[in-house]
């Protein structure tokens, strides 16, 4: 449980961090006062912003992304989903699993969930709309797009119908978003300081919020503080229960071996060595528990992770329980420290046993 709690306390943060860094974009620009895709707001003036950003030699790559809802018309029904308008040469939102990327204006790539919803295959042509008026029951921004590839969206959820097309295509289907972007992803030059670049961007572009990985993690940390507190409390409780259990086990063992310990003292074994032996016993019990608990903890973590990761709207790549060697070492270190602590009281008892009195009691027993 301690391992699970250590994994939970650090897992989401590390998982989120590696998710953000997975495509190497260190900075994201969102409309002022919002997180990326937190609202439908967009940033105007993509061309001007791109030009401004290119003026900074520390910026290596800029990837503007436009987000929109889409409806895919399937005869009498339609399937709703989301679409990203991207530049395929610099996009950092998906990985191509099969087929080809959106190299042409009439191409679309979709995720597995959407493909299954549609019952479509790569090469099929879809009738895609970007708007729907429920009063007139009419679709707007319609366009025929060919499914070119199957992709996995890095930041997408399992149960999300997602697609991507060229940004120009999406802009053409939604003229009101022309030269607008929901998000910019910025990759900085190797060795450049992302925080300095972020500060520079915020100064140059007052209408955007520039979020570096560190800022994003700080914001996520704030939002996930409940999980961390829960993990901390449960971790402390499990450590305390383990501590009491080991103390009890070792104390019982010392009491049962009082005669043996008294004889060891009688034949000249020093108090220090008795203390060492008893503390070592506590550590050995804790270590054995840690080794057994490691396997059990990993199985439990995997099971719980499957359940929690299935929550709607969470990116597939987010793990609640992330195994990290550091977490395992931390848990092991805490357990060994707890084992040492747990052995101190029974060790003190063992070392303080009055030899003659203990032997007399043993003889009577």
């Amino acid at each position: 449980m301690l391992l699970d709690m250590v994994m939970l306390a650090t897992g989401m943060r590390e998982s989120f961090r590696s998710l953000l860094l997975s495509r190497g974009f260190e900075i994201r620009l969102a409309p002022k006062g919002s997180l990326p895709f937190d609202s439908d707001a967009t940033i105007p003036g993509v061309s001007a912003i791109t030009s401004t950003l290119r003026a900074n030699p520390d910026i290596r790559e800029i990837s503007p992304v436009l987000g929109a809802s889409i409806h895919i018309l399937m005869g009498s029904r339609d399937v709703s989903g989301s679409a990203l308008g991207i530049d395929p040469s610099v996009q950092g939102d998906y990985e191509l699993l099969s087929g080809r990327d959106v190299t042409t204006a009439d191409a679309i790539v979709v995720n597995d969930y959407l493909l299954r919803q549609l019952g479509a295959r790569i090469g099929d042509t879809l009738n895609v709309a970007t708007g729907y008026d429920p009063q007139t029951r009419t679709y707007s921004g319609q366009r025929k797009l060919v499914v070119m590839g199957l992709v996995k969206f890095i930041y997408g959820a399992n149960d999300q119908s997602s697609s991507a097309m060229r940004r120009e295509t999406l802009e053409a289907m939604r003229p009101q978003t022309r030269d607008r972007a929901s998000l910019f992803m910025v990759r900085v030059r190797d060795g450049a300081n992302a925080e300095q670049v972020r500060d520079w961007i915020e100064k140059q572009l007052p209408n955007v919020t520039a979020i570096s990985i560190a800022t994003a993690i700080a914001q996520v940390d704030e939002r996930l503080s409940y999980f961390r507190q829960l993990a901390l409390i449960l971790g402390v409780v499990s450590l305390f229960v383990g501590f009491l259990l080991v103390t009890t086990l070792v104390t019982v063992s010392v009491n049962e071996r009082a005669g043996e310990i008294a004889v060891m003292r009688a034949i000249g074994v020093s108090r220090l060595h008795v203390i060492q032996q008893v503390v070592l016993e506590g550590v050995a019990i804790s270590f054995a528990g840690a080794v057994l608990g490691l396997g059990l903890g990993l199985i439990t973590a995997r099971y719980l992770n499957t359940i929690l990761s299935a929550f709607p709207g969470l990116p597939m790549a987010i793990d609640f329980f992330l195994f990290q060697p550091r977490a395992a070492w931390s848990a092991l270190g805490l357990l060994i420290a707890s084992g040492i602590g747990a052995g101190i009281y029974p060790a003190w008892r063992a070392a303080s046993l009055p030899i003659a009195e203990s032997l007399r009691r043993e003889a009577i027993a």
Partner: protein
Amino acid sequence: MSWPAAAEVESPIVSLREVRRDYALGAERVHALQGVTLDVDRGDYVAIVGPSGCGKSTLLNLIGVIDQPTSGTVSIAGKRVDAMSDREATQFRLRNIGFVFQRFYLLPILSALENVSLPMAEANVSKRERAERAAELLKYVGLGNRERHRPSELSGGEQQRVAIARALANRPTLLLADEPTGELDARTGTEIISLFQRLNADGTTIVVVTHDEDLASAAARKVHMRDGKVVVG
């Protein structure tokens, strides 16, 4: 072969003068020893006998430096031991006293050889020397073929012989035994009595507390106790 190669010390090897030992038992005080004076010479084989509760084991504990008198003096091998600190007493026991108990108290996870080596390890004897001497001692007590056996694989008599070998590990000045045949059958008890006689013949000073008439009769000298006093010694 001589067991042990004892240091040259002045006689008597054990000297108690007007030793009293009182215990608090609830609100009462128990006078376990009431002015005991006793000398044991080097090479002696002394059996302390008497009824239960007469103070035999208390006397042995004081001689073995695992307890301290309420008053009086205790000297072992010419050294006052009645007011030693715990650390001094532990070191003194390690180098000078060998203990054998009614229950053998061998460490169950260690082999016979390792059990015998234990006091030598505590005395920082080299590993090689420990192994050699432990093997030699086990051979001496007739267990040369049982070195690798654990206590659970040995009979009661064999375990007691391992305990005796352990008591001799650091060549003690004095071997103390508290009811060493108490948990053994008659035949095995006789073997242990013979072993004690052989040890004494080889030069070991032995003080044994016992109810066993055969063991007491095998001793060169009997000290009778009653009500915390030596009545015949």
